[in-house]
């Protein structure tokens, strides 16, 4: 786990990252923590791969052995929960 030690910090960093991959015409600030990222149109489904890259690089989560449960990447809240579990 890196220096982003509490959930608000991690959330802020995640939102900052999502800004770089979101569709430009969708405001991200307004998205509730439990809102579906793909279904809401904020990102396209292929962008899930970029989230995986972000988690691998930022939190050193290695998905290769156990794989990813897609629902763990479904919303800002789900991603934060995944980070807190260390990817498991």
């Amino acid at each position, binding site marked *: 786990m890196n220096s982003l030690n509490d959930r608000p910090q991690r959330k802020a960093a995640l939102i900052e990252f999502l*800004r770089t991959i*979101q569709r*430009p*015409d969708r*405001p991200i600030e307004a998205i509730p923590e439990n809102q579906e990222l793909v279904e809401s149109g904020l990102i*396209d*489904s*292929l962008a*899930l*791969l*970029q989230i*995986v*890259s972000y988690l*691998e690089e930022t939190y050193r989560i290695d*998905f*290769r*052995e*156990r*794989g*990813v*449960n*897609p629902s763990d990447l479904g919303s800002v809240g789900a991603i934060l929960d995944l980070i807190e579990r260390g990817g498991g």
Partner: protein
Amino acid sequence: MGSEAFLDLRPGNLIEPVSGRRWDVQEIIRQVALRVRRYEQAGMAPGDRVFIPYGNRLEFFADLLAVWRLGGSAAPLDGRLTAFEIEQLAQAARPRFFLVDDTLDAPTLGFLSRMDAKVLNTLENERGAGTASAIELPADRSFIDNEALILFTSGSTGNPKGVVHTHRSLHARWAALREHVGLEALGETLCVLPTYFGHGLICNCLFPWLAGQNLFITPPFRPDLVMQLGALIDDHKISFMSSVPAVWQLALRVSRPPARGTLKQVHCGSAPLTARFWKEIQGWCSTEKVWNAYGITETGSWTAGTSLGEFVPEDGLIGKPWGAVIKIFTTSDTAMPPAAELECKSGDSGSVWIRTPALMRGYLNRDDLTRQAICEGWFLTGDIGRIDDRGLLYLQGREREEINKGGVKVYPADIDAVVARFEQAADAVAFGIDDPVYGQDIGLALVLRNSDAAIIRELYAWMQRHLAQHKMPKRWYLMDSIPRRSNGKVNRAAVGEHCAKSTPLDLRAIMQSGAGKQP
């Protein structure tokens, strides 16, 4: 000869592993017969062109066989195309029917209903069918040299390029694959590729399925499914699948490998494969039989290939032709057939040419393009390659302009054409940019008559109305001018290199500065 062979061959079962739906052979024939009866009553006749803007579900295959049975030809389309894009394709092909399902959005469906073609919902075929378990299949009305399939490879925004295959060319491809690939490993075949795509439809789906093998079909290019690929393979005892490097790249990172050892053979195609990546796929799949397949829609997709078990993987290695003659010539001129003296020596690079009975009839209503690609049976692929002294083909590059975004081909001219219609756009050139996840993404160099933020927002909204979402450029670069040659052509790679030194527009800030305003 009619195409009754399609049904006489006794296709295998069709399964949707995501929904759990399954049709056995008897049900498939019933579904085809239902459609033949309904579509015939609706006026479908030999020679009709039928657009199918959906796919990757059981009904698609019944629709395809029904259209063929009635002597028509089918054009499977990407369901994500906008109404504008479908209109461009329809103007070129003049379809008499659209077969749709429930995935088409209401505006597009409304638009299709106003076109000069009948719209039939494939999900309504059961209506009035009663409970009869079998319906007599009427006589086959297709002929071997009928147009069977139109696959649009570009031009969805103007001047469409549709590859036309006949039943003869499709049968030739399948016969070659039976000889060179065989069916031994294909008993339980998984397809995660789109059915509007030659690789997915002709080779991954129809080749095994029409030869009696079971076909498991999923929605295409869904990262959430790829994340569960190992489990999917295990749960359904999948023995064969094909895919593209972008899907493998994802699977290797985010899916656990299959554990039950059912996978016997795997193909990878539609983009070059490095030796290292090839071995990684082999490790994940736990099978030696990872075959790199060279697929071109115009030659019925898989036209050459090799397997890890036969040769040591090397960057760019393809292998030997499958039902084709492949030669390397120093010329890329299709005004005359390539002369023997222009053939490259072993190891020398040149243009890749192919002769095969699976060659398309030509490009739909585009004799000009056909002449630029085919001369006396020789097809100029647009690829650069070499053949070594063992007769193995290696690919070294492409002359084509397509952008390969995660395995989906995007044609930059389609994007240029949409931007060109925007009143404030003076010039635009789309190009490929390197992307660590997709391999390539899309950049756009743009010259605007007025570059106010409001105009950029208008252009963004304009492009969204006219282009499928996956074709939207990721990075936009504003320029004073775009250098073109005297004939108006542009070197997209050079434009891309120039843009790489500049800062792209902050689209998010521009779009959100206008939030709430009408574009």
